[in-house]
């Protein structure tokens, strides 16, 4: 890493390098304009009024923050009034202890802007206009987009002028040259297609400001210009590395120091590897360069996932896991293309879209130039609690587990129905906003002349997240094993114990905890129950869509918020031995040492749990392994084969923690001493001692019985 990047890293970590927002007075005249044109006009004025700031170490420019006076970038929801309103009512607030409202991700198609430029988009707008000759609403929207393009180009020229001005003033011949080159870049992109790697990265960074979420698959869309530059000698690996590093530092710096999420790393998570459209392994020299460039930076963002698939060579997996074990900032996770792409194809997503999916946020599958709706967290344990309480007479009459399960399934489907209804309502609330900035970068908005908020995106997906799915499966297992198969206790006794929150039934609880056949041990009973449950979820979801027509899938991450603890606090004791009010589990795996049969069993249970692929949404799998497994070379090589086998068997996601429970417990006692420990939480990583108590406990519970 060179000195310039080093200085940039220090600057980005020691305080905000983004300029503060300058307040703008909008004139009254524009109130008469239609909404999209008014927004475009105001945004253009706003952008023009902001200073063109960059540090003397920057070679990429574009820094800007929006102040919320106008709907701007969609991912941070700046200025989206209806969304804000819905948030203030429902965000983080469990409705009926069943469902909350979450934000959404949406991702720009940066590759498209790099190859077509805004001029390409303008041509698309002119084409689209022909289809809506008499539709004033649509024409107004397209006019807004076109005005926005003009505003963005003006902004890039403003930066070009600033670069020229500084070049004129600069005493250093080298910096003068650089500044002139930067000015040329700004005159070229994003208006026109990028002609070389440097222009492409400048275009990417400049447009990142308009949708500061994932940068998608940079190892794919930057690859042609990278190859071209290397081949004709105009680009060296060192220069490419430097540009990428500057890009990553600036992406890191986008999250403000004053943000509550500053020390968490999920924003701007992107992917490397995966498939090409020809279904070949997409890993290339640039993937490796990106990974190496990122690992050299002592930063916590951006985070990165390897898209593994059956064409991925073991050496690539080993390389990524080697980086993972050495990365104290815990930026790396792994996902499996096979089950995910299969699920998409099954649900009608064409291969040409599916092969190019990305992972964003904590761990959410998405599309470049697409939107991910939902992400709402839900309490899946409630369906069982309802079964046990509201259907009591019926279940007391059940002679076998099958008849019990039939009743449970009715309750499950009813809750899933309610979850979908909530989610639809939330998404309709959010669709009242109009966005002309991010819509430019989302495929379909031009063609449909519709804001991304209102269903403009062609590539979209819907998902809700289950909190407590492992608690639920374990509880069903215990009912099957203890009540119906081994007859260790009657249904009456179990219900009485739950009603009493185990008071007076300590011995029953202890024997459940010690003798229970819990999920994660690769035994027939718990595997069967898990598969049955997820198949029931599929039965509900199969063939259904949300209001926008997106197919339905589910996941199990909790995001930055402690939803699993909030739902748990409102949920009574459950048959898996859980006491009332305690946190639910999130993710696909097991915790609290209930995975007694070892790591291979745990992984196989998870890999096989979902035969239908209905969980191919935001699902995560946290695995804690003994530190020695990554320190000892022989064990590490076997860990690589372990992970590979897990993926070959259908495992969807994996992220590793390798700290000991003792270390974490010590860190809780003496946080100052252990400030540097970062752990993977729910698809993202964060500093352990800064996490809330509920998450700390969850992380420790996962490490109770590591291999």
């Amino acid at each position, binding site marked *: 890493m060179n000195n310039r990047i080093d200085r940039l890293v220090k600057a980005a970590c020691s305080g905000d390098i983004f300029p503060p927002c300058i307040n703008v007075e909008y004139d009254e005249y524009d109130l008469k304009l239609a909404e999209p044109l008014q927004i475009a006009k105001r945004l253009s004025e706003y952008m023009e009024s902001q200073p063109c700031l960059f540090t003397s170490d920057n070679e990429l420019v574009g820094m800007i923050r929006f102040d919320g006076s106008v709907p701007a970038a969609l991912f941070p929801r700046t200025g989206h009034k209806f969304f804000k309103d819905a948030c203030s009512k429902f965000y983080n607030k469990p409705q009926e202890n069943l469902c909350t409202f979450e934000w959404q991700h949406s991702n720009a198609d940066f590759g498209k802007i790099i190859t077509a430029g805004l001029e390409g988009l303008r041509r698309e707008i002119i084409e689209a206009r022909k289809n809506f000759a008499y539709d004033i609403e649509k024409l107004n929207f397209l006019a807004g987009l076109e005005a926005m393009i003009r505003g963005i180009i003006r902004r890039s020229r403003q930066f070009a002028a600033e670069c020229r001005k500084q070049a004129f003033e600069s005493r250093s011949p080298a910096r003068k040259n650089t500044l002139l080159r930067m000015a040329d870049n700004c005159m070229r992109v994003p208006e026109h297609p990028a002609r070389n790697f440097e222009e492409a990265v400048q275009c990417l960074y400049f447009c990142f400001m308009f949708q500061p979420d994932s940068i998608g698959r940079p190892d794919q869309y930057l690859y042609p210009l990278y190859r071209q530059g290397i081949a004709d000698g105009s680009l060296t690996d060192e220069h490419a590395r430097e540009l990428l590093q500057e890009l990553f530092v600036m992406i890191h710096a986008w999250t403000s120091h004053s943000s509550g999420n500053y020390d968490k790393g999920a924003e701007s998570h992107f992917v490397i590897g995966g498939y090409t459209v020809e279904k070949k392994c997409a890993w290339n020299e640039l993937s490796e360069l990106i990974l190496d460039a990122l690992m050299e930076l002592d930063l916590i963002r951006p985070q990165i996932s390897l898209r593994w698939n059956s064409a991925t060579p073991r050496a690539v997996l080993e390389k990524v896991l080697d980086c993972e074990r050495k990365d104290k900032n815990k930026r790396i996770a792994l996902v499996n293309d096979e089950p995910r792409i299969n699920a998409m194809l099954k649900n009608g997503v064409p291969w040409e879209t599916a092969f190019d999916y990305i992972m964003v946020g904590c761990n959410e599958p998405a599309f470049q130039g697409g939107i991910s709706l939902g992400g709402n967290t839900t309490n899946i344990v409630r369906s069982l609690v309802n079964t046990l309480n509201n259907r009591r007479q019926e279940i007391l009459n059940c002679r076998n587990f099958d008849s019990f399960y039939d009743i449970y399934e009715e309750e499950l489907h009813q809750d899933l129905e309610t979850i979908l209804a909530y989610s639809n309502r939330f998404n309709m609330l959010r669709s009242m906003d109009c966005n002309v900035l991010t819509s430019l970068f989302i495929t379909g908005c031009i063609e449909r002349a519709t804001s991304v908020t209102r269903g403009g995106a062609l590539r979209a997906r819907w998902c809700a997240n289950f909190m407590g799915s492992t608690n639920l499966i374990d509880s069903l297992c215990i009912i099957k094993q203890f009540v119906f198969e081994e007859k260790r206790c009657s249904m009456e006794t179990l219900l009485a114990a739950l009603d009493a929150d185990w008071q007076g039934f*300590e*011995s*029953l*609880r*202890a*024997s459940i*905890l*010690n*003798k229970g056949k819990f999920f994660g041990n*690769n035994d027939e009973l718990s595997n069967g129950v898990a598969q049955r449950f997820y198949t029931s979820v599929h039965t509900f979801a199969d063939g259904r869509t949300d209001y926008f027509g997106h197919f339905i899938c589910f996941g199990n991450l909790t995001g930055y918020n402690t939803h699993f603890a909030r739902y748990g606090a409102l949920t009574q004791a459950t048959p898996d031995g859980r006491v009332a009010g305690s946190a639910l589990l999130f993710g696909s795996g097991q915790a609290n040492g209930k995975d007694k*049969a*070892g*790591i*291979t*069993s745990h992984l*196989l249970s998870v890999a096989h749990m979902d035969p239908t692929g209905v969980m191919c949404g935001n699902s995560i799998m946290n695995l804690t392994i003994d530190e020695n*497994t990554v320190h*000892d070379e*022989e*064990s590490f090589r*076997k860990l690589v*084969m*372990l992970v*590979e*086998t897990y993926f*070959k*068997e259908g495992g969807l996601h994996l992220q590793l923690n390798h700290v000991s429970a003792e270390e974490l417990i010590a860190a809780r006692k003496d946080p100052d001493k252990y400030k540097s420990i970062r752990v993977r939480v729910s698809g993202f990583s964060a500093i352990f001692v800064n996490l809330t108590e509920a998450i700390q406990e969850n992380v420790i519970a996962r490490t109770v019985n590591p*291999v």
Partner: protein
Amino acid sequence: MNNKKALIFDIEKFAVHDGPGIRTVVFMKGCPLHCVWCHNPESQSFKAELFFNRTKCTNCGNCTAVCPAGSHKLFDGKHDFNREKCTSCGMCADNCPAEALKLSGVEMSVDEVMTEVLKDKIFYQNSGGGITLSGGEPLAHFDFSFALLTAAKSAGLHTAVETSGFAPREQIQKLFPLVDLWLWDIKCSPEKHKDLTGVPFEPILENLISVAAANGKIILRCPLVPGVNDEDAHLLNIARLANEVAGVQEIDLEPYHPMGEGKSSQLGRTESFHAAFASANDKLRWKNTISAHTQTPVHLY
């Protein structure tokens, strides 16, 4: 179908230091040796044994109700356990809600063991791994081990046997075609062998030579206890064996850890061996001394 049975006290998945690839290790209970440092005291006896962990006991009294031998009693609400009459039937452990009682040693048939082992077959296939027989002393369960290895071979698994090498020669010879790798313990110098392990070294050495003569692949496994068996003469002997016995591919050094000490008391045994953890210096000296006298790779665990 194979119903041969043995007492199994553990089946360990994702074992990474017991042969190539990802492996499952099957631990058989009972061993003819009695190494003073044994860190698996439950592996020595050929009978099932009951672990009792007093700190976990909640004095619930479940065990008193089910024990046919009357070994468990409650005095003033406090649990008292008298091991003498215990027949290791396991009833109490099955009914102890707190896992204070645990039976070590479950009779399992070859088929049952194979069912468990084959659950991880995909991992073995993808990593070149397989099954490792350990103990106790697997050769002391010869019929079972023979049947298990036969089953493993016919399932296409790589097989390894971890052994002290103390067994009748004819039995070892019968296993030649079934064992891909021998993890052969070299416990201490021949002079101390009888004292520290209870058996002489000579038959072990002869067996080792016969394995080598049959082209067996061998890893020497050397438990080292500071101040007990880590003198230079022994280290040099290990190097010499590696040089002179064909087929030795690797030397694994296993520094002593005192885990067995807590377990002994839970088994109701008083005799307890104490030694210190090996220091980094000790380990370095062991490795360097051996490496100076042989080309065979030396691994330290």
